[in-house]
């Protein structure tokens, strides 16, 4: 691999790199080895601790939890995109009575931690004004408000990044505002934004795990319940590892899709490059 930072290594550099490599392997290996040794020393490798995987009922329970996670993710993803589109349109509106409240709402929900939003929806509404919503909807609506606001910024940046000449030309052809937006700006903007939108969905998927804290029956909660069962040997470490693998797998599938879409998009003609994308996308990290 040639890089900005170094030339193709010569014999001395190769030798040095090998030494560094060995030192690196030794250091990383020591840490991993220590963890594995502690696993062994505290009996985490004992067959009994892993037995739970073989129980059909537990497999079903994990599948059910997985379904709950995916369900919350799917509903939240769709709602976030709709919310984002509406409020992006609001922020781009020429009417200040629409623009100002949209801006305020988007900025507010972007600044408040998602967990606090979920608490407001779940505990706040219930104990404050007596509206009880289920844990599922608290998670989904919280995700919608937070990620929808992030997506609204992404949409806005995408539409603003379409070259000015495009809308000027459309106006010159006699199109109205709505028509310019829907048939000229949106198709081009969405195209440049699709990779960012899809990678934001990974954030939505990961954040469904917050449902654990309001006892929504998702993967993490089941992990906690299984892990504290004495008759299984309290295999919390083992369950957590399996759940981690499931989450990482799901997220990798999603980001794989987004990379695929990105590749297809950049292969075609005009995909307006935006300098803003990375920045706005970064706003969504959680």
């Amino acid at each position, binding site marked *: 691999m040639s890089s900005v930072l170094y030339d193709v290594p010569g014999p001395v550099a190769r030798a040095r790199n090998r030494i560094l490599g060995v030192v690196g392997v030794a250091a990383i290996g020591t840490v991993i080895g220590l963890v594995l040794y502690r696993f062994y020393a505290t009996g985490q490798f004992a067959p009994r601790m892993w037995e739970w995987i073989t129980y059909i009922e537990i497999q079903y329970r994990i599948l059910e939890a997985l379904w709950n996670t995916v369900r919350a993710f799917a509903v939240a993803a769709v709602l976030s995109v709709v919310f984002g589109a509406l409020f992006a349109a609001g922020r781009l509106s020429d009417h200040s009575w629409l623009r100002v409240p949209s801006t305020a709402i988007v900025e507010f929900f972007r600044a*408040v931690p998602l967990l*606090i939003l979920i608490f407001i929806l779940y505990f706040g509404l219930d104990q404050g004004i007596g509206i009880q919503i289920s844990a599922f909807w608290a998670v989904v609506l919280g995700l919608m408000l937070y990620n929808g606001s992030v997506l609204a910024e992404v949409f806005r940046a995408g539409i603003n990044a379409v070259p000015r000449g495009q809308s000027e030309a459309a106006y010159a052809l006699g199109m109205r505002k709505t028509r310019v937006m829907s048939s000229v700006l949106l198709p081009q903007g969405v195209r440049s934004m699709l990779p960012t939108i899809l990678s934001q969905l990974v954030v939505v998927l990961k954040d469904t795990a917050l449902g654990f804290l309001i006892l929504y029956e998702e993967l993490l909660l089941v992990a906690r319940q299984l892990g504290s069962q004495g008759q299984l040997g309290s295999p919390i470490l083992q369950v957590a590892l399996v759940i*981690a693998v499931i989450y990482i797998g799901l997220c990798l599938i999603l980001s794989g899709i987004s990379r695929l879409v990105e590749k297809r998009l950049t292969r075609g003609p005009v995909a307006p490059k935006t300098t803003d994308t990375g920045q706005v996308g970064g706003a969504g990290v*959680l």
Partner: protein
Amino acid sequence: MNVLLDNLDVYIRGFGGTLGLFVVAAIGSLLLGTLIAGMRVSPVPVLRGFGTAYVTILRNTPLTLVLFFFAFAYPRLDLVDLSFFTLASIGLTLYTAAFVCEVVRSGINTVPVGQAEASRALGFTFTQILGQVVLPQAMRATVPPMTNVQIALLKNTTIAAGFAVFNAGGIYQTLSERGYNVLVGLLWVALFFVILVAPLTWMQRSLDARWGVSR
């Protein structure tokens, strides 16, 4: 208003916890993230591989699960006994470092190749190029995304409240025990976060305005 004034102690303690976690994890993640970014661009394949694996794993794991590991699974390993605050700081640091690493790395990619080539022509070593030529320039490009990562960290600290670290995320529980209106109490928490995030965003804009255009 009463909810806030009557429980000022809870709010101060809660946001104190949040800021404590934030400061520790922010410094930790900046250091560790830069170190891992250095690994990811280094000429040593093993270190590159480790950096990539680290970032891929951490970025695709929910933070709640990372903290879950430290709160419930770590004590099972019978290692050093650490307080929940320390464990949460470690978890937040490790998680945020993966994002910091990516920001630094993409910043490094914005530095023109000629800069590094010129330094190599002058006989700089890898460490010198990275430390004296590339990173200082990369840092300028990374101001906006880095601030975003740190703002996300500030908000993420609330999750530690779910794992026995008292901070802004746990305020509602105390209010609920004391019989106050939880909704109003939580709205105050939300408002304080808006107030906390605002100066960071402002700093981001002004730093970006000062440094960003220089290339």
